[in-house]
């Protein structure tokens, strides 16, 4: 496979995953905002910006911390490289460059997501925001389904690899920011917390019901952290995403005969995460741990590019 093709497929996976994540984040934040009894919407939207690490970019365009402005910035701002609109556009560009490698279904899902933003997005009241977010999620879900039905070859493996690497990053960020935002200094882990806020985290990763199945003792921060960090059953957990990274790389090694630094890094990381106990992480410092996960993931991204000669 051409290195450029592989790079396009990998980035296609990353951008689709990112678009999906932002859609979920906006949806969950919107819910939090609406539920807030205090006029605390501002905090909710500030935290959404923090998760995507876009507070400075938002400030630079002179945005006000209102639902409408942040939602527009994250969803449909053509000037913001991290908006869903731009992610979907980048995903489509990459998909077009490898058009023949994709099934018609997979292409149509990407094209469908892109067409959502074909017309200028008008007023973003809560209802239209939710409708747009739902449509984005429907198309990314359609894409994932289509990829699942494609030949299990290098093409799908590179897409899955991109998705897994992006997912690791997104989940780690979500947990890091929310945890610190929700747990003011001095508050012990496991103490009384704002139930709605923790539910928001679970919603962002589609894990509200999963949580109920796995933990019997109600909403507790330590459990939410455990679920998102180490439970392989949850597809969006750091553990599951890193394991998926290993699976994709192993598949690529088998079909291309190429193994290298990225394989070693991914395997080492996955094995370490499997051994890690959530309680140890919390007592040693969750923030430091998550920052290390994010940094290590970025190193792996570079190693993947090097190994498959993306540049």
């Amino acid at each position, binding site marked *: 496979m*051409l290195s450029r093709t592989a790079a396009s497929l990998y980035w296609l996976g990353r951008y689709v995953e990112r678009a999906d994540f932002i859609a979920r984040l906006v949806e969950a934040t919107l819910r939090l905002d609406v539920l807030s009894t205090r006029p605390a919407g501002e905090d909710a939207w500030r935290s959404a910006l923090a998760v995507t690490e876009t507070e400075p970019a938002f400030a630079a365009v002179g945005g006000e911390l209102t639902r409408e402005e942040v939602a527009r910035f994250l969803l449909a701002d053509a000037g913001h490289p991290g908006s869903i609109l731009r992610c979907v556009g980048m995903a489509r560009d990459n998909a077009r*460059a490898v*058009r*023949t490698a994709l099934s018609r279904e997979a*292409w149509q899902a990407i094209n469908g997501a892109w067409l959502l933003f*074909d017309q200028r997005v008008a007023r973003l009241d809560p209802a239209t925001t939710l409708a747009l977010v739902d449509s984005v999620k429907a198309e990314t879900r359609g894409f994932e389904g289509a990829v699942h039905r494609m030949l299990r070859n290098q093409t799908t493996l590179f897409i899955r690899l991109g998705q897994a690497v992006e997912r690791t990053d997104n989940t780690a960020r979500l947990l890091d920011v929310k945890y610190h935002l929700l747990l003011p200094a001095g508050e012990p882990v496991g103490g009384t917390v704002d139930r709605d806020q923790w539910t928001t985290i679970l919603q962002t990763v589609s894990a509200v019901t999963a949580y109920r199945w796995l933990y019997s003792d109600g909403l507790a921060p330590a459990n939410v952290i455990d679920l998102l960090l180490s439970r392989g059953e949850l597809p969006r957990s750091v553990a599951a995403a890193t394991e998926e990274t290993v699976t994709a790389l192993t598949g690529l090694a088998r079909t291309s*005969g190429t193994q290298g630094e990225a394989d070693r890094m991914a395997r080492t990381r996955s094995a370490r995460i499997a051994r890690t106990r959530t309680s140890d992480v919390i007592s040693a410092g969750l923030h430091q741990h998550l920052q290390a996960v994010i940094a290590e993931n970025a190193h792996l991204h570079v190693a993947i590019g090097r190994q498959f000669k993306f540049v």
Partner: protein
Amino acid sequence: MGTAAFDEIMGVADRDGARPELADLCRWLDETPSDELRRRQRSAEVTFRQLGITFAVYGESEASERIIPFDIVPRVFLADEWARLSEGLVQRVEAINAFLVDVYGERRILKEGVLPADLILGNPQFRPEIAGIRPPHDVWAHICGIDLVRTGPDQFFVLEDNARTPSGVSYMLENREAMVRLCPELFAKFRVAAVDSYPDMLLETMKSVAPRGSGQHPNCVLLTPGHYNSAYYEHSFLADSMGIELVEAADLVVDDDLVYMRTIAGRVKVDVIYRRVDDDFLDPLVFRPESLLGVPGLIAAYAAGNVAIINAPGNGIADDKAIYSYMPEIVRFYSGGEAKLPIVETWRCREPAALRYVLDHLDELVVKLVDGSGGYGMLVGPTASKGEIERFRTALLAEPHRYIAQPTLALSTVPTLVEQGVAPRHVDFRPFVLSGARGVQVVPGGLTRVALREGSLVVNSSQGGGTKDSFVLMPGAPTMSQSPGTQTLGGMTQTLGGQG
């Protein structure tokens, strides 16, 4: 203009009824309600849009990817018409190839005074950088699209040769797919030659011209300018149909005069490149030093004989407008016989007698700039105003060598589905001719473009033109009823007990 145009199905307007061989098609048109035709046509266009068979319109936003309108009424060539046309096409393409070998080699045609030397050597399309290079197997014009117009049953004229990177073949293939799906009854009535072997023929052609030493399985690739190019769909479609890599310049690297592509498992040697990029963007070391595009060193690898480039760089000299009027002489010089396919009568205004004639008949002629394109710098005498004609008279007198003139032709028509029903519309035709190490072959079909506006002669897709399927009937084809041994299967017409 005045005289009625020849209709390829209905014959001439003043006679009743269709051409006898095509009576069945005429009956089909009568019996199938326009609404039904329209429904099928829409269904084809929906498919084209879903497949992304679009072309980008330059200068418009990214969202404006359009499809070219598809017309459901096919155009039909009878077997014997096609046989004669093919002979003419083969002869012409052989001459084009011999001409390229000659002008970049010995230049016999100049030494013997058949063509004025400055016409070639002073032509911007002539690439002195290429002179002296011999492409593998001496094949230059591997894929030619010869644009033709028709004025009567056996009156075909070459309007233009395309020996660089002719496009449109994906429409030939996709239109046929659509017709087989939407109008299967037509393939029961007519034995239509299959076109779906084109990708195989093309791949065979590519492999046949691989440099010696490429081994049993030469590595062939298709080089595209990228997915923003207006013909990108065709590039990806062809690469996919042939099962070869679709590469961009950045995917290729030249090392020690060998061409490689960059893959995830390292460099892989490339033997044959079907390029869909212009000469200018092939190799910045040779053609455009200021350009960042292209593959540095590609032409050196080509000159060393280590890679075949399809079509060969430098071909622009063969299909240049200034050369066009000399094609009858060129064909005669290399084939020893008269050209079987005539060109449209052309007055070269650089010649005093021709200039005098043109100036006397400006209101009847089409006057073109030799180096103009896309209808710029063109006078259409019969519809021009007095002022325009006088402006051209002045320009002609000042710089006669920059102009040629041609008569206006009564282009043939084919019944076409329009808003009011089925009506005649003007068409042109681009057949595709492949030349490999083992000879020249014509694909039995091609791209028919149709001017959808009444009376219009402009078939360009950017100006409201559409496309049609082009049927080529097989010899001995029964046209009155279905022969018992014939059935349609998928895209192929198969004769039981033998290869269709």
